[in-house]
């Protein structure tokens, strides 16, 4: 299975993602933001980081970079596109997934492990996973998910919430919401569920002795799903 990780000026999780994808069997290629052509891929990943120094709004400049047109075409033809952290911010700025990511509610940069609960398994990313609650890492200043009431209705009607912030038992109470996100939303899909944007970093949880292996389960399963 072939994957492509896009590097923007200021991306800093691109190499971590490359390591994670290769570890679980993807043939990954790094792609520069200024390229026109996307290599043939089964999965495209927009990694975390601070593309363009977070100027104007996080992800807004990267959303207009050259490679994005081929990514938009790839996504619109059903290709799998996953945006993690800054990648999620880029996805909302391109309009590929609804909503926006505001500054964290308490104005703090948050860097810690959190638990998330998978809401929808009827998609290539989460189907066949044998558990619902995962421990992932978050590190962001603008992860406070927000959308209009009309968008929220559409998101709910189409079951587009991918994951919610929760505790280790999967309780999605407001007190387990780290950043003020609307309804504890940590990740969402587009309507067709081929595009996933999420704030947590599964690529940081791929080594049992260093971090935890919930990211390993995620990537192994993802590879099996798209084989």
């Amino acid at each position, binding site marked *: 299975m072939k994957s492509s990780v896009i590097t923007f000026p200021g991306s800093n999780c691109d190499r971590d993602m490359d390591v994670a994808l290769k570890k679980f069997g993807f043939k990954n290629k790094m792609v520069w933001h200024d390229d026109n052509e996307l290599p043939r891929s089964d999965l495209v990943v927009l990694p975390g980081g601070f593309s363009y120094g977070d100027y104007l709004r996080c992800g807004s400049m990267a959303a207009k970079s050259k490679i994005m047109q081929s990514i938009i075409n790839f996504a619109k033809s059903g290709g799998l596109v996953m945006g993690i952290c800054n990648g999620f911010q880029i996805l909302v*700025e391109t309009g590929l997934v609804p909503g926006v990511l*505001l500054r964290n509610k*308490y104005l703090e940069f948050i860097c810690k492990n959190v638990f998330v609960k998978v809401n929808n398994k009827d998609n290539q990313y989460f189907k066949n996973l044998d558990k619902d609650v995962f421990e992932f890492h978050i590190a962001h200043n603008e992860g406070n998910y927000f959308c209009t009431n009309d968008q929220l209705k559409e998101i709910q009607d189409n079951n587009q919430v991918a994951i919610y912030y929760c505790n280790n038992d999967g309780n999605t109470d407001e007190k387990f919401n780290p950043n*003020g996100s609307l309804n504890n939303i940590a990740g969402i899909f587009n309507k067709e569920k081929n595009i996933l944007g999420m704030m947590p970093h599964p690529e940081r949880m791929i080594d049992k002795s260093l971090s935890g292996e919930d990211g390993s389960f995620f990537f192994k399963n993802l590879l099996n799903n798209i084989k």
Partner: protein
Amino acid sequence: MKISAIITLKKDVLDPQGKVIHQALDGMGFKGIDEVRQGKYFEINVKENDPTKAKEIVEDMCKKLLANLVIEDYKIIGTQ
């Protein structure tokens, strides 16, 4: 021609930075503030001398890049 535009958060969007500034001002003795909202200001020099056309160009920029219309409003506030 220089066009000025301001981008502000929509009314129902939470502005935590504005809130903190409000609290700081209050602590400094500036009492009687109802609310503080923080925004962005742009000055854009466009190669266009017709004010109507120049405004239209900047308005297009606001819609496509400078503002995110899900959470922000824009306003062209001046030409010079």
